[in-house]
């Protein structure tokens, strides 16, 4: 099994980011000067090497329109691009997402012979700042910009149906694994 990670982003402008960043900027003082958003898509493919995995991945990306819309979206494979400035990332997952299972079934219906075994999607928000954030700044960020508990606090995560955790984007890539990701 090979596990591939796609970080999908919009080619031109991500309006989720624009609105989220403007909203945060207007409400809280923050060292953050840029906000990026990626749809992280982790695919488990039943092949033995990376080259075969990429071969299996190609049609899913270029013509399925299930993982991304190639007319307006692109992706980074395995890692996020390096930034000159410091970055802090969070991963937001739906608590009871069934989208992955539905998407997996639609892909298998389109490509019945593909070796795809599972899909798991989440959202990565990347906060860019000039200097690495201190623990206190990270805590402030979580309180003020991330975890939504009232109209005045948080924005990016609704804890009633979403979970969030700090995310290190480049720590694992293209892992050979023993089990497919469970999609339901």
């Amino acid at each position: 099994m090979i596990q591939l990670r796609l970080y999908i982003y919009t080619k031109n402008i991500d309006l989720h980011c624009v609105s989220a960043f403007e909203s945060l900027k207007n409400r809280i003082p923050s060292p953050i000067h840029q906000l990026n958003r990626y749809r992280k898509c982790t695919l488990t493919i039943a092949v033995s090497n990376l080259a075969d995995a990429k071969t299996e991945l190609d049609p899913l990306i270029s013509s399925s329109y299930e993982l991304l819309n190639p007319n307006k979206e692109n992706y980074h494979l395995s890692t996020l691009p390096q930034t000159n400035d410091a970055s802090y990332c969070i991963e937001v997952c739906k608590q009871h997402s069934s989208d992955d299972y539905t998407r997996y079934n639609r892909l298998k219906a389109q490509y019945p012979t593909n070796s795809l075994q599972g899909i798991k999607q989440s959202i990565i928000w990347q906060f860019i700042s000039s200097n690495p954030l201190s623990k206190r700044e990270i805590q402030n960020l979580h309180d003020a910009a991330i975890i939504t508990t009232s109209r005045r606090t948080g924005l990016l995560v609704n804890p009633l149906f979403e979970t969030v955790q700090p995310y290190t984007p480049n720590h694992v890539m293209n892992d050979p694994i023993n089990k497919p990701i469970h999609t339901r």
Partner: protein
Amino acid sequence: MASKIGIIQFPGSNCEKETLAAIQYYGMSATLLRWTTPTTQFHDHDAYIIPGGFSFQDRVRAGAIAAKLPIMDDIVTAAQDNKPILGICNGCQILAESGLVPDTNATQHIEMALAPNQKEHHSHGFICDWVFVKPSQPQQNIFTTLFDNTDVIPIPINHGEGRFIFQSSPPSPLATFQYCTASGSIEDHYPINPNGSTHNIAGIGNQNGNVFAMMPHPERAYLCRQIPTSIAGDWPQKKHAFFSSETHAPGPWEKLFIALKEAA
């Protein structure tokens, strides 16, 4: 003097004109208030409606960006002044993201959310259909006070994120509408509960009884002629009967708009 209703228009709202028509039909005057309306102008109204649509294109989450705007401070003030406030569809999502419903402790902490639709615990995407709802504890909110527990009312739904979920169990003394069959039976399965809402909830009021948030669209059923003949129940027959005498006969949501008129 006619009640003056402010209909709040965010970038991406798309049901404000129907809402305006419904308000005027029931003898109230209405003004479209843009999201940038100054506070002094804003408070010159007796009640407010946040209509349906896709405010800010549902960026981040439905209603999340709109809930952070300064105009929501004015909405909170109006709610605290006991003015009636109704949120429909996207307006319901904005009220939930603002913590104005159910607001059981009057702190505007977020106690419920409108999560993506589910059908039998699987993702269901956007739904557009007619459903039936019935009120529960209608006397607890000014918008539902004219309804009876036995009323079964047809109404259209049109949303992708309409599944009510609560931090704890839904607060019981609050007025709600619940999805039900055409005969009024509350059954927790698709398509009776079209989006997997907790306890079949389609709309819920606040603790104070002056704010109500509902996902279905009453402004699309304010006239009898808006009812499709294909749905179950007696409203299609009523529509036929009215058509022979009166083409602008009031629809099944007359009680909600009359209650608003009386309260505003």
